[in-house]
């Protein structure tokens, strides 16, 4: 019944339906979140016996004074700022172009979607070769313009740039598909109306396409920000298990990984995770409040 009042029985029934998914979510998402929050306060802790002998703020004091963590935060922010806006702009442009293509459009869409379905490790290996300072395609290409060979992966100056370029390329596929869906959902009538109202192509883009695409742009941005804050696998794969030359590509998650798996400092790893959590939360809240004004559903 559509107008049924919620009763104890009906609520119980609903929970039963939700149970399988709930079980998985609680076990693999909710519980680890709570546990890592708690763990960030364990200052004396035996991981194997799960015995906590001391709790306190020491882990946070440690990371806030750790120069490595400062580097990680700085690198993460550079990475996010470097990757997200460019990803959004480039994928929107490519989506707009793809949307115009009538001929072989299916093939082009598949080609652009490929990076998304390819494993990060494989992509990183390919880019590893592209970036090779002696035999790499990129240096060869630049040499055509008279640019001297650049040691993309070995120089701390360029390592972050290399990482950003590869990440943008890897992110494009999925975002292009999202933008294409968004573009297709804009009714042709709005463009006709805009034409009648005297809007040229550019005005049609700024007054019809952009505002009506804003929900997708917002989704792509949030997605990109969260994904970029969590960057780890592409770094691990591109620099062969190193956070780049002289920690030039050390991000927060990479820091967390090092503390947890190589130094076994679980409390500190958890504390850095908590800091990351609040950073993402803050940025997302800012984006959400911005979206209230500028995203048109």
């Amino acid at each position, binding site marked *: 019944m559509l107008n049924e009042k919620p009763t104890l029985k009906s609520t119980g029934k609903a929970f039963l339906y939700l149970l399988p998914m709930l079980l998985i979510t609680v076990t693999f998402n909710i519980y680890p979140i709570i546990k890592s929050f708690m763990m960030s306060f364990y200052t004396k802790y035996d991981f194997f016996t799960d015995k906590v002998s001391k709790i306190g703020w020491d882990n946070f004091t440690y990371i806030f004074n750790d120069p490595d963590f400062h580097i990680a935060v700085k690198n993460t922010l550079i990475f996010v700022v470097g990757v997200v806006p460019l990803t959004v702009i480039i994928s929107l442009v490519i989506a707009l172009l793809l949307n115009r293509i009538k001929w072989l459009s299916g093939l082009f869409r598949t080609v652009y979607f490929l990076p998304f379905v390819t494993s990060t490790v494989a992509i990183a290996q390919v880019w590893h070769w592209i970036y090779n300072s002696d035999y790499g395609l990129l240096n060869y290409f630049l040499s055509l313009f008279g640019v001297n060979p650049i040691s993309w992966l070995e120089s701390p100056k360029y390592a972050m740039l290399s990482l950003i370029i590869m990440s943008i390329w890897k992110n494009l596929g999925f975002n292009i598909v999202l933008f294409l869906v968004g573009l297709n959902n804009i009714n042709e009538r709005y463009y006709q*109306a805009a*034409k009648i109202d005297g809007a040229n192509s550019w005005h049609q883009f700024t007054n019809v396409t952009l505002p009506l695409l804003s929900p997708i742009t917002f989704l792509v941005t949030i997605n990109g920000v969260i994904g970029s804050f969590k960057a780890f696998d592409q770094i691990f794969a591109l620099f062969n298990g190193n956070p780049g030359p002289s920690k030039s590509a050390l991000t927060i998650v990479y820091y967390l990984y090092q503390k947890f798996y190589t130094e076994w400092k679980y409390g500190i790893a958890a504390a850095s995770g908590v800091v990351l959590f609040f950073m993402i939360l803050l940025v997302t809240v800012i984006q959400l409040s911005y979206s209230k004004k500028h995203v*048109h559903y």
Partner: protein
Amino acid sequence: MEVTFKDVSLSYDGSREILHHLNFTIPEGTLVSILGPSGCGKSTTLMMISGLLAPTSGKIFFGDKDVTKQDALARKVGMVFQNYALYPHLTVLENIMFPLKMAKVKKPERKKRALELAKLVHVEDQINKKPGALSGGQQQRVAIARALAKEPSLLLLDEPLSNLDARLRIEMREEIRRIQQETGVTTIFVTHDQDEALHISDHIMVLNNGDMQQFSSAETLYDNPSNLFVAKFIGEPVINTLEISDFQGELDQHVPADILKNAVSVGIRPEALQDHDSGSDTIATIETTVKEFEKYGREKNAQLDFHGKKLLTTEIENNLEKDQKLTLYLQKSGFYLFDQDGKRIFGGDQDAK
């Protein structure tokens, strides 16, 4: 502005023609309806006037100016789309201001003009709402205001009333008429509803299968249909159509023999069948049998059998019984003969004496 089509044809794919050799002139300052059944090409005709579609051949003139090659941007007409196409992310006022913004009108001036238009179409109390929060009728009025904002010399309306309920539709068509008369803008109104067309337009163009059937005033359309299609399409209830062979000599002494020879179809308006003799206006008398008699309100309808064919009449004075014999007096006005191509060869003004 006067709109002229000279031999305009259109086909989308190059092989199948949608519109065939349209020739017409829409006089300045009038409200013209393009009327026809679904798929007859009326919206397509409108799109060609707006410049959203280019004709495959032929020329379009605005006044003396050839605009065939100009696109919608250059033609500067105002248009109201069937589903209004109001920008969902802009408020009502911003929607009305949009064409002015595109025309680079200064903001205070824009706002002033938009408010005037909002008043004209009676949405001044809704200006800060988004289109999604408006009713269909309000959306339509906003769409009209937006179309009028840049003071177009031509206002095009593409089935603007089809999404409204019956009562609102009648209200809105009066509204469109009022706005048209207040602004004096040449207005072209596409509809499939003859009632709408008959009520508001100065002239009606009837289209069928991409061919123009007739272009005249509502009255002429009804009294002097130029062919069988128009006769059948206009009028409620629908005109009675019979074959000439259904008559057994009843017409012989009233219709000239050479016309009767070419006649194939006979059209008789339901009100042209009377159960009382009106003297000189009577063209023939026929004998029928009553099949059904209905009376509701002030309407009396009778279904009659005439040589095995069905006839409908609305001009009955006395109550009838089923299976009763009835003599009907066929009136001059409302009686038409059509040849094998459907062209009218008898009846209406051309045979008025």
